[in-house]
């Protein structure tokens, strides 16, 4: 079995990076959190921008990111008067056994004192994690997230099918793959449901995709609709468009839907292919899959997306030769060689698989080298979900 070099955490999960994470549960404490993280190499700060209410979706996603094995230790920096307290976040992450500390600005006596203390904590951890040595692990310990953004006519015929080949191989060797963006599955629910491991999973797939159709309908968007750009670009039906999108997850059986709502935040419970109830918006879509445990991300793009992630390496694959040539700083894999017959879909799939293993063993992606630290939690309108009968 193929192996990668990672870091074993106290809960048995394997990280492919050794980040120190500073979590600001609310944006009121994000500035000092960023200042603290900026002083220590490998440290990164995240927050959410949906107020200080104790919303389960926010808690699940912030906690999930802290629990991700790419994070070696977590410092939670709060303001003090928020309902979504540092304690809530810290206690949930502490259960994994990784080091967790909290600082509350109103208790520490202001920003400067908090920052000084925070930097001291991170520097101490930095010395400790410098001792961690990566060890070999089988790829059944790997969870890959796949995403697409800035798609064009090459996405559905080059980058997505090639990444799909890599996903199939990862799953065949015992690994796990997650993909999301249910809005981009509309019109293919019957095809995805056919690939479900059982009837219950098939029902979940229909529910997840039809919920997104209902959300579109509620704001007056007909899900049959394709843009003029889609049709000009050569897409004939919504099935064709969605099949091109879901191809990036490969062709294997679907183990289940990972719900991400007020009641549930699911993580893969066995290897194989999983769908996440997420959003079509790239950065939060990736953030939610990483919160569900993905250590590494493959992102296909045609026009040239540049995003990365705070704690997970994001590998960019483009099937567009012009994008690869003009955006070499951003693109990790050139899938455009498929277009002229220079490479087959399987050749680029193998190349992608090898890059996943290399990246999971420490090799930096272009987005990491550029210092991208994207992180967004997406929150649906709870009022709208009630009106639609989804919760």
């Amino acid at each position, binding site marked *: 079995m193929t192996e990668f070099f990672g870091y074993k955490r106290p809960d048995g999960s394997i990280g492919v990076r050794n980040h120190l994470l500073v979590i600001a549960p609310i944006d009121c404490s994000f500035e000092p959190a960023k200042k603290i993280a900026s002083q220590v190499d490998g440290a990164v700060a995240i927050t959410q921008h949906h107020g200080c209410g104790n919303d389960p979706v926010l808690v699940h996603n912030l906690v999930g990111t802290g629990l991700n094995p790419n994070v070696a230790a977590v410092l939670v920096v709060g303001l003090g008067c928020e309902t979504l307290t540092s304690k809530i976040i810290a206690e949930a992450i502490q259960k994994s056994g990784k080091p967790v500390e909290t600082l509350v600005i109103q208790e520490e006596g202001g920003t400067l004192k908090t920052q000084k203390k925070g930097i001291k904590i991170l520097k101490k951890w930095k010395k400790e994690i410098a001792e961690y040595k990566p060890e070999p692990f089988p790829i059944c310990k790997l969870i890959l997230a796949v995403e697409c953004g800035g798609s064009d*006519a090459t996405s559905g015929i080059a980058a997505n099918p090639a990444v799909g080949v890599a996903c199939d191989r990862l799953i065949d060797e015992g690994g796990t793959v997650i993909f999301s963006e249910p809005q981009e599955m509309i*019109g293919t629910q019957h095809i995805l449901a056919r690939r479900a491991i059982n009837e219950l999973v098939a029902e979940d797939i229909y529910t997840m995709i039809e919920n997104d159709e209902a959300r579109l309908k509620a704001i007056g968007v007909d899900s049959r609709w394709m843009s*003029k750009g889609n*049709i000009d670009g050569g897409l*004939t*039906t919504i*099935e064709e468009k969605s099949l091109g999108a879901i191809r990036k997850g490969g062709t294997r059986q679907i183990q289940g839907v990972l719900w991400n709502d007020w009641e549930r935040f699911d993580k893969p419970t066995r290897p194989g292919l999983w769908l996440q109830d997420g959003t079509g918006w790239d950065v939060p879509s990736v953030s939610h899959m990483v919160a569900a445990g993905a250590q590494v991300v493959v992102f296909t793009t045609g026009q040239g997306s540049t995003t990365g992630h705070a704690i997970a390496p994001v590998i960019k694959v483009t099937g567009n030769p012009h994008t690869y040539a003009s955006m070499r700083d951003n693109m990790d894999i050139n899938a455009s060689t498929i*277009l002229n*017959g220079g490479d087959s*879909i399987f050749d680029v799939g193998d190349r992608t698989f090898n890059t996943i293993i290399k990246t999971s063993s420490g090799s930096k992606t272009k987005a990491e080298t550029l210092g991208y630290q994207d992180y967004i939690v997406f929150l649906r309108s709870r009022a709208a979900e009630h009106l639609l009968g989804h919760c």
Partner: protein
Amino acid sequence: MNIKAIQIDDRDNVATLTNNSKKGDIVQVLNPSGVVFLELQLIEPIPYGHKISIKNLKVGDEIIKYGETIGIVNKNILKGSWIHTHNVGSARMPTSGKEEGIL
């Protein structure tokens, strides 16, 4: 000019062009392993990113891409023809009418 078209799954009856083309051009169709298995002379121009029929198809036939049905033929199609909204409709969500407004 050397025009290529890609068949993504070996069950597909269409392939996608990776260059712009004009009537009379020869299109080399690559199978999923990247091997040219068919050459077709174009009876009409087909734009980059659009599909070519690699079989004769009649009304009611399914259009297969990614090994799955992406639509149903609503006008008979000769091998080597351009496949798009003028001769294929969605099997699940009829787009006719919707498209007319935007094309």
